């Protein structure tokens, strides 16, 4: 076990994937000499050369589109999109090409791209640097979407994503980049939990709190705070956003009867909508109250001085838990 930050763990995962498979190449803006604006690719160009760690011209559609061509040729490209808000110029290539080419070619061509996206807010950045665009990709058939919350998952799941023959959107919670954790660098990928599996990160009995990425830490804090008030929250880290691993969610909700989903993305058609809908469909007779969503508002990301109001925090999560529990002291004063 080694103590690593999230960025170091991703860096180690990239390094290991490149060592294991010469067909793994990295593409992105400023990922080479600079090592990325977050230093995630630090040192990799030096060690693997500029033919495998490629500083590209400033054009996201081309980063994805040339990666498609590289995949045609048998490479496993790992693209870095510098910030969440800069993925949209590459949207067409992702939706119409990356997601569809395997089906379009009757399975004869594979698109084992990994598209790394530092995402989410809370770091005091200007516009377009704090977005949570994951729902767009979850709605897009043909893609897999994952998000990590800790260094070990980052290391393991990134390697699994790169090894996957399906295209994977890999969302990195940038405000947790400096969070440290123990990482087993010798982890056996075939024995590690699949990147598709959700994980119960805190056991509880009263309410199921589902989240992913940057808010897992906050949800765990909320569970601790609630415990002091005698409320037992089960926290689930989704890990895979598409497909969602409903097994553990269903099992948990059947026990607790109550569901809260929380994410930074806007509420309307954020991932919470799908989870509330699917759990309602699957566990209707077990639900004791309406599921609750605690999310960013339906607004463009606000100026950073106001982001704390947009982002779900511990208090808003607990307010959501109160609502799910139908507790009279619910802060919002709103019914479900």
């Amino acid at each position: 076990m080694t103590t690593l930050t999230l960025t170091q763990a991703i860096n180690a995962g990239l390094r290991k994937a490149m060592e294991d498979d010469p067909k793994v190449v990295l593409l992105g803006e400023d990922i080479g000499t600079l090592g990325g604006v977050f230093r995630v690719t630090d040192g990799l160009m030096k060690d693997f050369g500029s033919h495998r760690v490629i500083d590209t011209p400033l054009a996201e559609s081309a980063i994805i589109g040339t990666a498609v061509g590289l995949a045609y040729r048998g490479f496993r490209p790992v693209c870095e999109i510098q910030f969440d808000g800069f993925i949209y110029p590459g949207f067409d290539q992702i939706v119409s090409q990356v997601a569809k080419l395997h089906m379009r070619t009757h399975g004869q061509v594979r698109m084992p791209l990994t598209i790394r996206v530092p995402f989410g807010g809370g770091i005091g950045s200007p516009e377009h640097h704090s977005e949570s665009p994951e729902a767009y990709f979850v709605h897009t058939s043909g893609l897999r979407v994952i998000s990590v919350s800790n260094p070990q998952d980052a290391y393991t799941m990134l390697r699994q994503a790169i090894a996957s023959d399906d295209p994977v959107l890999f969302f990195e919670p940038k405000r947790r980049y400096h969070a440290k954790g123990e990482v087993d660098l010798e982890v056996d990928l075939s024995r590690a939990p699949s990147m598709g599996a959700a994980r119960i990160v805190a056991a509880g009995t009263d309410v199921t709190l589902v989240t992913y990425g940057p808010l897992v830490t906050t949800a765990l804090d909320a569970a601790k705070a609630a415990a002091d008030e005698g409320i037992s929250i089960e926290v689930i880290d989704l890990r895979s956003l598409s497909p969602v691993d409903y097994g553990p969610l269903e099992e948990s909700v059947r026990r607790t009867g109550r569901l809260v989903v929380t994410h930074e993305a806007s509420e309307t058609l954020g991932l919470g909508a799908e989870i509330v809908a699917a759990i309602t469909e699957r566990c209707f007779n077990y639900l004791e109250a309406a599921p609750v969503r605690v999310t960013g508002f339906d607004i463009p990301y606000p100026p950073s001085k106001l982001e704390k109001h947009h982002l779900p925090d511990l208090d808003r999560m607990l307010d959501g838990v109160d609502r799910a529990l139908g507790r009279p002291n619910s802060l919002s004063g709103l019914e479900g």
Partner: protein
Amino acid sequence: MLDATADPGTSPQLGLHQLIAADGAGVVDELLAPFVADVDDEQLLGLLSDMVVIRRIDFEATALQRQGQLALWPPMLGQEASQIGSVRALADDDFIFPTYRENGVAYCRGADLAGIMSTWRGSANTGWDPHEFNMATPQIIIGAQTLHATGYAMGLTMDGKESLAIAYLGDGATSQGDVHESMVFAASFQAPVVFFCQNNHWAISEPVGLQAHVPIAGRAPGYGIPSLRVDGNDVLAVLAATRWAATRARSGGGPSFIEAVTYRMGPHTTADDPTRYRGLTELEEWGAKDPIARLRIFLQSRGKLDADQEAAIEAKADAVAAELRAGCIGTPDPAPMSIFDNVYTSPHAILDRQRDHYERYLASFSGATAANTLVEGTRS
């Protein structure tokens, strides 16, 4: 010095290059001639045969569309020299990224005729295995394939291969951001990619003048990419131009751009009505530049095309047309449950659940076989 066009190494050759004029007369072109010095009469006959055959494919497919056997067809009438001249300049391991219109190219590449038709029939997503023929599926998103070709070419360099990727694109496509980004990447990484632009003068109803104020071939030099403007109705010149670009690519010379100036004699697709937006004069003018007629005259005037050879070509075209028709009509409808195939390479719980649900749903109509037949009736 700072004039980007001053260095002969990256200089455009923007005059319209020709080897056979519209009237079938030979033309001297010093740049192109060396690239086809080896082309003998037999090879010329081969090019003629190819063009006649793909024109027949085009007619047959148009007829099949009218008869309801194809959902849609994008004719290549008038563009035979551009398609044949370019594809015949390529080696088998050169990788082709076509648009929807390069069905003649696909045929030359060896793709099965029924397969080529299957996507236009609406029964398949691809008509061939891209890896088997080193040719991607037809691209419908305008311009997108130019990035794929560039990426593939970057991969060739990484793999140390002396091969190339070629992207076909139309004049309309040149307006898309993706095409620009391809040229930026191709130039920066000196990728062995050939941009083969068929300027057929129209993008559906829009004349090329709307997309480009000055000749399209003039853009590439601004990226440091050498560019050639060639008579796209002159199969020999197109062959030579493509070989020029291919030679550059294979010898580490990086990307090239070819503008093949041709004309879309038919509608955009069988769904289009060109009389709404263009007159007969233009059509007549271009009819006089027909690629097949001119090669025929060129050969005839040199005594290299006799009646037997003509007949052999026609017979070949007849056979191909018959094969196409039979293959197309004989293509079975795909199985309903196949809509769930190949979305992912490995199991996917949500989709598997939907598949399972739909399978049971279909089965409920008519017992066990329902999942493999079409559901026509309503239940009420």
